[in-house]
């Protein structure tokens, strides 16, 4: 008798204990934050990419948490500064995966850093949304790697299409020798013939250089010159622009989306007037018609960023916004942070209206934007204007 009673009460105690444990564990898991991992070039040569990216991530993680978080859990942003170095990016990615055990990685301001990390995320089966520009990141498609910025090839195509419409066929390239400039130059050279463009001069400069009149003089003296394209980013394209006007080149100058921030206009001053470039619609959000699907998202981001940080918004921050929102959206859709499920949901992103454009991803397209994501802008009177 006693032993059966004892066994029954033992069983009951065990069941109660198990239930209590499950409850505690359940609540503990529910309280555990969703970890968003990130490595960005906050300092170093690409800091004007990484700085707005980090600020954007921090701003929107706070906003999302203030609105109740995701799936009832808070978001926690763990971000490291890779300073533009592929080696540091690799080590920090390892740290995010093995030590911090994050649920998703959004980062990689530059292509070099992104490419270094790809083998790690592929092996660790963790979804990774890159914020870098080169087309090689998603071509060929890698299972766990996505990206939000428009590709450098798209920028070339947008520029060449505009040149074609103005009957400009013989052009010169002057590119920065960093990863972005070189990669875009290579893309432009490969797609030029598709648009009937002939590259008749090809100069380059180092990203820290202070004067490009020598290269531009060579370009100016090339017979038959009809336009010049400057793939590059940072402050140096502004110097190129100033030098361009200084030595009196009159043919049209095109810049890349690497200068899509107010800083370029401030540095180049009056020399920037008349320059055309492909860029996301963020810079001309106010000028968009009310019917434009991106207008609301763009204005909301612009207002939030500028009122929090008191500095002009830059398209690079928009890449981070898109990455974060797509990831969060995917988590909400599958109702968990299971990495495989989230990856599938990201791949199925459809009609997502972001800062960079409207995303339609697929198993063969892990970027999801088309040429329409780029608008052609021209700088007039020290401000961006939208060309139709």
């Amino acid at each position: 008798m006693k032993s059966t009673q004892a066994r029954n009460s033992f069983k009951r105690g065990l069941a109660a204990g198990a239930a209590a444990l499950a409850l505690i564990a359940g609540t503990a898991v529910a309280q555990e934050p969703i970890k968003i991992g990130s490595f960005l070039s906050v300092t170093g040569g690409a800091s004007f990419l990484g700085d707005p990216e980090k600020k954007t991530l921090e701003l929107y993680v706070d906003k999302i948490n203030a609105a109740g978080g995701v799936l009832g859990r808070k978001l926690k942003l763990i971000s490291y500064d890779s300073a533009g170095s592929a080696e540091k990016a690799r080590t920090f990615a390892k740290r995010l995966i093995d030590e911090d055990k994050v649920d998703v990685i959004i980062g990689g301001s530059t292509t070099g850093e992104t490419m270094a990390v790809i083998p790690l995320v592929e092996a660790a089966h963790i979804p990774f949304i890159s914020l870098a520009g080169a087309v090689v990141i998603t071509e060929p498609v890698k299972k766990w790697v996505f990206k939000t910025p428009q590709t450098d090839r798209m920028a070339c195509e947008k520029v060449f299409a505009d040149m074609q419409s103005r009957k400009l066929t013989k052009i010169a390239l002057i590119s920065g020798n960093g990863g972005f400039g070189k990669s875009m130059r290579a893309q432009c050279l490969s797609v030029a013939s598709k648009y009937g463009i002939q590259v008749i001069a090809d100069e380059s400069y180092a990203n820290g250089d202070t004067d490009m009149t020598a290269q531009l003089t060579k370009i100016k003296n090339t017979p038959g010159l009809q336009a010049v394209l400057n793939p590059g980013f940072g402050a140096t394209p502004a110097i190129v622009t100033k030098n361009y006007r200084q030595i009196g080149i009159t043919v049209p100058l095109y810049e890349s989306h690497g200068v899509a921030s107010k800083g370029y206009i401030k540095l180049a001053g009056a020399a920037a007037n008349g320059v055309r470039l492909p860029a996301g619609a963020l810079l001309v959000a106010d000028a968009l018609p009310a019917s434009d699907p991106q207008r609301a998202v763009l204005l909301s981001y612009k207002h939030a960023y500028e009122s929090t940080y008191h500095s002009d918004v830059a398209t690079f921050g928009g890449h981070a916004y898109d990455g974060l929102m797509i990831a969060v959206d995917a988590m909400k859709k599958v109702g968990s942070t299971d990495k495989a499920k989230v990856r599938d949901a990201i791949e199925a992103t459809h009609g997502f209206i972001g800062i960079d454009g409207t995303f339609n991803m697929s198993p063969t397209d892990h970027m999801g934007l088309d040429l329409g994501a780029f608008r052609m802008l021209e700088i007039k009177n020290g401000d961006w204007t939208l060309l139709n």
Partner: protein
Amino acid sequence: MNSSRILTRLASPRTGGLLALAILIALLPLALPNSYFYDVAILVGLNAIVCVGLNLLIGYAGQISLGHAGFFGLGAYGSAILATRYGWPPLAALLATTVAVALLAYIVGRPILRLKGHYLAMATLGLGIIIFMVLTTEDKFTGGPDGISVVPFRIGAFALQGEHIWYWVVGVLLLLAVWLALNLIESPTGRALRALHSSEVGAEVVGINAAEHKLMVFVISAVFASVAGSLGAHYSGFVTPSKAAFLHSIELVTMVVFGGLASTYGAVVGAAVLTTLPQLLTSFEDYEMMVFGALMIGTMVFLPRGVVPSIARLLASRRKAVPDDKADGK
């Protein structure tokens, strides 16, 4: 062998020190909880190999090199291009690259080492920058600023992949590098080098061919850097020109001086501290650079001979303070 002889041998850098280092390397994994820590340890090991070689040049031979990352980068790219683009077996690529870098160091070293002091520093710096520019510009070969990915290191069918295997490989190679360096220092060549360091003219007067010795050390240190670069390329799976950049060269020299010039173990300590420090300082975020710089200044001001020699001095002076009856009795 009686106990005092064993103790004396244990106290010598070659036996005792190597043993201590070997034990440290063997036991360290117990303190490493996950792959990330192994990764940092491997990076420390690779940097340490370069620094041990560089220390021979700077600390013992007294020659400065501000372009050593160039050799490291060449080693990395040589292995990367031969093994990945041309499908060579990685071991053959490694050996071929090492020979090529040694040859380059030999050819370039002859004229460069005729310079002294800051002029030599400038020449090595220029060499490093030229190497960096070539790696960045010849993108058809080298992939340009974004670099190229590298196949894993294979010996036959066996592939070296994963932090755990690489940890032991790098650990053993570090021990080998330290052993080689210590042997060189204790050999007549090493003594010739130290004579060179204190007075080049004096050394020549006693019959030491200064130019030959300087060149030899230059080539040896370039080889250490190249091998470490090749291995690093296979380990991390990619190469970018920043491996050969000026800032990397400065980092290496800083590690050597920080750890202690003319101290092989100092070079290891310097590499360890300066490789792990950025990982420890990440919580400072925006202030990380300031803290790092301040730490560098502070350490060099208070330990001007570098960490290991200063601590050794401290211990030695403490020991002298205690009266030692056994000192002369041997």
